[in-house]
């Protein structure tokens, strides 16, 4: 689960961190704003998923490695609501929540439809990739188990 989760968090995080500044430089005139809480907590969240992916691939599997990865993963988990509520607490570049209808906020119906279509598309993509990635992890785990079994038979 942590393998699939961290891989997809890095993929979608990089998608935002790479495409966001290109859009930001066109719309805001600056690619990144170090004073914006949403931007920086999201960047940190992507860095956490990068750490999880790199640590999993480069460190030997042991109790110490698992504890470290779990601790950093929990930090990332705690960071998610902070990122989600960042624009409610502190508005610098990003506006507050705009999809809730009120006197000051709200979206035109055609923009809301595009937003919902985009959300549904990315949700489907995420579910599909999660299933594929999870299948791959299970197959790799079974392959590793069978290879160990073969090695033991050869040595005995």
């Amino acid at each position, binding site marked *: 689960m942590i393998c699939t989760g961290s891989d997809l968090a890095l*993929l979608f995080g*990089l*998608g935002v961190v*790479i*495409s*966001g500044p*290109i*859009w930001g*430089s*066109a*719309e805001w005139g600056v690619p990144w704003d170090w004073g914006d809480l949403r931007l920086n907590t999201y960047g940190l969240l992507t860095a956490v998923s990068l750490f999880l992916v790199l640590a999993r691939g480069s460190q030997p599997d042991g109790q110490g490695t698992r504890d470290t990865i779990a601790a950093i993963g929990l930090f990332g988990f705690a960071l998610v609501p902070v990122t989600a509520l960042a624009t409610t607490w502190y508005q610098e570049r990003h506006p507050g929540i705009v999809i809730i209808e009120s006197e000051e906020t709200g979206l035109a119906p055609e923009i809301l439809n595009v937003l919902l279509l985009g959300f549904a598309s990315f949700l489907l*993509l995420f579910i599909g*990739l999660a299933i*594929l*990635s999870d*299948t*791959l992890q299970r*197959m*790799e785990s*079974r*392959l590793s188990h*069978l*290879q160990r*079994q*073969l090695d033991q*038979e050869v040595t005995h």
Partner: protein
Amino acid sequence: MSGVTELGLAYAALIGLLGAYVYRLVTRLADVDARLTAVEDTVSAEENE
């Protein structure tokens, strides 16, 4: 560069990233599947002996 060009670049970067990940995932799936089949055949052949 106009805003639309930059937006196009942002989408191209996003689609390229997703495409590269999907390509890598499918390639690894095919590779691991072939290796798993070979190992399973070897294990079942040894069990039959």
